[in-house]
C-alpha cells in the first residue's frame, strides 16, 4: 500500500535534495546526497553517529547551507534555505532537546509560534488568546493528548518527559506542517508511549503529512513502515521500503561490517556470591531483594515509573536507600553518597551521561583518569600526567575509541564514543560491581556492539554487572537473568537465555497486586 501511494504521488514530490555536498572546514560531511520525499510517506533516516544524518536535517530546516547542490521545494529550486523559508514551506523539526519553553503553559508552547509567525516576528502586537486556545486544542487532539483546560494550562516543566515529547510534536503539527522531522523521538519513551506516537504518525500520514524519523531503534521503524534511507560516511548507501531489509542487513549497511545480532552472553557466572540486596527501600523501591554472583550479568527492566531507575541510583549512592541491607563480597555496606559507593567498589554509569557522567569540555584524558587522580598524585599532590596518559591510552584502546587524540574534548565525540569513555573510566579502578543505567541509550549499532563486547569481557574477568535498561533485546542478548520490576517490586525473574521480549513486556505491565495473587 505504501508503494502504491508512493507511485501515485510521484509527480508532486514535497522536497527533493539533489547532489547535496557539505564541507565543514576540512571535513566532508555529506558527499552527494540525493533524496526525494513524497507527501504522506514515512522515512527512516538510519546510520551510525557522525554519518551525516543531522547535517541533512539541518539543511532541510534551514539551519545549515549546503556547500553545493540543489534543494527543490514545492517545485522551486534553492541553493540553500533560511529557517523562515523552511518553516513557511511547512517543514517542522522536533529536535532531540524538544525546544520547549519550560516555564510556559502547554497551550503557549504549542500555539504561540503560529501567532509569532503570523505576526512576522514583530512583538508589539496583542496575541489572540481565543485563537491560541483553539490552535492548541486542535494540535493536542491530533497528538493524542488531552485538550481540557487543566492540561492546556499545565506548565511544561511539570509534565513527564513522555508528554513533553508529544507536546513538542503537537507544536510541530499546530502550524499545518507538510513534513515533520523527528530527531530520535522515542529515546526516552516507554513502549506504551511509543504506541501512542506511532498512532500520531499514522494520523499525520493519513492527512498527507510526510514524516522523517532519525532513529537507532530498528524495531520501531519496522512497526511504522515506510522507507528506509541508510547513510554511511556522508553518503546514502541504500534507499527502499523498510520491510525489504532485514535488521541484520540494515545494521551491515550502516556500519559497513557484519554485526552479529545474536546473544553476546557466552560466559557463565561463578558460584561465589558477590552482592546480596535484602529488602532495599528507596523512593519508588519497596523492599526489593535479589542477589548477584561474581561474573554474573543481571538485567533489570520495567516501565519508567517501576522503580528501576531509583534502584540503580540507590545502588550507586546517587539517591541513597532509606532501608534494607546490602552485602557486597561478604561485608555489609552502605552507599550514602557516590563517593562512598565508589570506595566500596561499586561503579555507576548513569543514564544521562551528558549531565551526570562526563566533563564535556574536558579532554578524553582528563575524563578517563577522573577517578584515579588521587592515586596518580604524589605526596605533594602533583599528578603524574605521564602515568595517567599511559593509563588513559590503554583504556581508550580497550574501549576501541575511534580517535587516538586524547586531548580532544569529550563533547566533540559521538554518543557511542562518549559512552565508551565513561565505561573506560570505571575500568581504571576495576570495581567489583558495575551498575550500567541505560548503557546504549542514543548509541549507534556499531558502538552498541563494542559496548556489549566490553560488558561481556568485564563479566568474564569476574566483575558483577547490573544493567538497568528498557532496551529488551539488549538485556536478552547480554544478561544471565532478568528481573522485571513494577511499582517498586520484582514481579518476575527470567532466564535471559530462554525469555522472549513478549514475556518481558507482559511482565512489565503486571502490577504487584496481580503478581501477589
Amino acid at each position, binding site marked *: 500500500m505504501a508503494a502504491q501511494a508512493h507511485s501515485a504521488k510521484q509527480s508532486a514530490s514535497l522536497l527533493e535534495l539533489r547532489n547535496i555536498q557539505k564541507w565543514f572546514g576540512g571535513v566532508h560531511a555529506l558527499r552527494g546526497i540525493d533524496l526525494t520525499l513524497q507527501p504522506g510517506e514515512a522515512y527512516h533516516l538510519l546510520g551510525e553517529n557522525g554519518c551525516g544524518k543531522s547535517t541533512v536535517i539541518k539543511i532541510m530546516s534551514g539551519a545549515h547551507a549546503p556547500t553545493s547542490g540543489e534543494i527543490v521545494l514545492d517545485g522551486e529550486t534553492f541553493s540553500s534555505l533560511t529557517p523562515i523559508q523552511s518553516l513557511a514551506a511547512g517543514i517542522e523539526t522536533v529536535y532531540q532537546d524538544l*525546544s520547549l519553553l519550560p*516555564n510556559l503553559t502547554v497551550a503557549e508552547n504549542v500555539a504561540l509560534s503560529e501567532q509569532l509567525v503570523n505576526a512576522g516576528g514583530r*512583538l508589539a502586537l496583542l496575541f489572540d488568546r481565543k485563537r491560541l486556545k483553539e490552535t492548541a486544542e486542535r494540535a493536542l487532539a491530533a497528538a493524542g*493528548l488531552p485538550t*481540557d483546560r*487543566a492540561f492546556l494550562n499545565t506548565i511544561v516543566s511539570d509534565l513527564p518527559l513522555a508528554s513533553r515529547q508529544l507536546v513538542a510534536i503537537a507544536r510541530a503539527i499546530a502550524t499545518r506542517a507538510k513534513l515533520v522531522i523527528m530527531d530520535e523521538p522515542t529515546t526516552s519513551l516507554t513502549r506504551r508511549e511509543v504506541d501512542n506516537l506511532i498512532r500520531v504518525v499514522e494520523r499525520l500520514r493519513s492527512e498527507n503529512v510526510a514524516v522523517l524519523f532519525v532513529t537507532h531503534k530498528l524495531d520501531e521503524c519496522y512497526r511504522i513502515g515506510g522507507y528506509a534511507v541508510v547513510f554511511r560516511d556522508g553518503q546514502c548507501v541504500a534507499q527502499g521500503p523498510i520491510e525489504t531489509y532485514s535488521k541484520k542487513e540494515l545494521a551491515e549497511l550502516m556500519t559497513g561490517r557484519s554485526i552479529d545480532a545474536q546473544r553476546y552472553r557466552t560466559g557463565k557466572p561463578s558460584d561465589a556470591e558477590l552482592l546480596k540486596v535484602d529488602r532495599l527501600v528507596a523512593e519508588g523501591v519497596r523492599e526489593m531483594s535479589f542477589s548477584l554472583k561474581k561474573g554474573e550479568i543481571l538485567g533489570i527492566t520495567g516501565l519508567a515509573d517501576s522503580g528501576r531507575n531509583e534502584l540503580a541510583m540507590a545502588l550507586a549512592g546517587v539517591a541513597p536507600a532509606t532501608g534494607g541491607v546490602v552485602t557486597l563480597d561478604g561485608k555489609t555496606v552502605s552507599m550514602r553518597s557516590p563517593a562512598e559507593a565508589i570506595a566500596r567498589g561499586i561503579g555507576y554509569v548513569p543514564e544521562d551521561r551528558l549531565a551526570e557522567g562526563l566533563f564535556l569540555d574536558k579532554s578524553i584524558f582528563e575524563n578517563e583518569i577522573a577517578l584515579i587522580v588521587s592515586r596518580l598524585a604524589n605526596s605533594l599532590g602533583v599528578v603524574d600526567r605521564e602515568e595517567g596518559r599511559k593509563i588513559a591510552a590503554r583504556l581508550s584502546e580497550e574501549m576501541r575509541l575511534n580517535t587516538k587524540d586524547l586531548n580532544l574534548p569529550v563533547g566533540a565525540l559521538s554518543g557511542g564514543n562518549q559512552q565508551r569513555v565513561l565505561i573506560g573510566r570505571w575500568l581504571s579502578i576495576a570495581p567489583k560491581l558495575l551498575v550500567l543505567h541505560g548503557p546504549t541509550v542514543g548509541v549507534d549499532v556499531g558502538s552498541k556492539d563494542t559496548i556489549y563486547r566490553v560488558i561481556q569481557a568485564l563479566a568474564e574477568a569476574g566483575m558483577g554487572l547490573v544493567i538497568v535498561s528498557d532496551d529488551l533485546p539488549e538485556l536478552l542478548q547480554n544478561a544471565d537473568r532478568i528481573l522485571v520490576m513494577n511499582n517498586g517490586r520484582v514481579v518476575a525473574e527470567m532466564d535471559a537465555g530462554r525469555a522472549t521480549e513478549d514475556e518481558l513486556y507482559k511482565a512489565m505491565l503486571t502490577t504487584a497486586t496481580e503478581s501477589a495473587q
Partner: protein
Amino acid sequence: MSASRTEDLHGAAAPARAPFSLGELVRRRPESITFALLVAICVIVAIANPAFLQPSTLIDIGRASVVMGLFALGVFVILAAGGIDVSFTAIAAFAMYSMTVLVQSYLPGLPIVVIILMATLGGALLGIINGLLVHHLKVPSLIVTIGTQYLFRGFLLSFIGTVWIMSLPPQMGAFGRMPLVQFESANGALITLPFYFLVLPVAAFVTWWILNRTLMGRAIFAVGGNADIASRLGYSLRTVHVFLFGYAGALAGLAGIIHVCANRQANPFDLVGTEISVIAAVVLGGARITGGTGTVLGTLLGVLLIVVLNSVLVLVGIPSTWQRLVVGSFILLAAAFFVTRQRKK
C-alpha cells in the same frame, strides 16, 4: 493506583489535576505565601498596637510604596526574562536630578506633565543603553548593570552636579502636594493621599497588560525560560532586550521624578544603594531569581511586605535597627519555602 497510572497516559500527562492542596497552591502561586505573611504581620501589629489601623498609617504605607513599587515592576520585568538590573536607582537619580537642574536653571516654565514625560523618556534611553550592551556584549546583565550603575552615577556627579537642591521649582513641589483624597483625622490633622499615588496602580496595570496580553509579554517569559530555545523559535532577543531594559529604565525615570516631587528636594546622592531591597521585594513576591516566573500581583505584595515591615516595627516597639534582621529572615524563609516546594515536584 499505580495500575491506573501505567495504563493511562493521559492521567500521567496531567498531574496538575490532583485534588486541591496547599502545597500545590503555593507551588503554582508562590505569592499566596507573601500574601499570608503580609496578612499575618498586619493582624499581629494591629492587635499589639491598634494605632496601626489609623488611616494615617495606611496612607503612609501607600505613599511609601510608590517609588519602590515602580522600581520593583521594572526589576520584575527584567527578572521575568532571566536578567537582573542593579542600575535602576542610578537611572532614577540621573533622571530626577538632571530634570530638576534643567527646570530650575533653564526652563522654569516647563509644565509638570512634560517634566514627568521627559524624565520617563530619559530613563528609557538609559535603559536602552543597558539593553543594547547586554545584547551585543553577551555579558550577563548583572555585570553590565553594575558597570552602568557606576557610569550613570559617575556622570551625574561629575558633570551635572553634587549640590543638594532644597527648593524645588514650584510646579514640581505642587505636584508632590496635589491631593487625591484628603480628610481630617480625629486629632484635627489634615491627612492627604497624594495624587501621585495613582501612578503605581496605573503602572502595575500597564505592566500586567504588556506581560499577559501582548506577544512581547510572552516573548519576555519565553526568553526567561530559555533564551536559546526562544531565539530558535523565532523570538528576536535583541528586540526583547531593548524593550525590557528600556521599559525598566522608563519606570526608574518616572520613580525618580516622583521621588523628588514627594520629598520636595533633589539630592543627587539619593536612591542608589536601595537596589537590594527592591530585588528582595520582587523575590519575596514569588519571582524566581533565575527568571521566567512571577506575577505583577506578587511583586506588589512583595513591595507592600517590605514597606510594611519598614514602617510598622516601630509601632510595636521593635527598634528600627531590627528591620534588617526581620527582612533578612523573611527572605531566607520564603526562599527556602519556595525551593523545597519546587523540589517536591
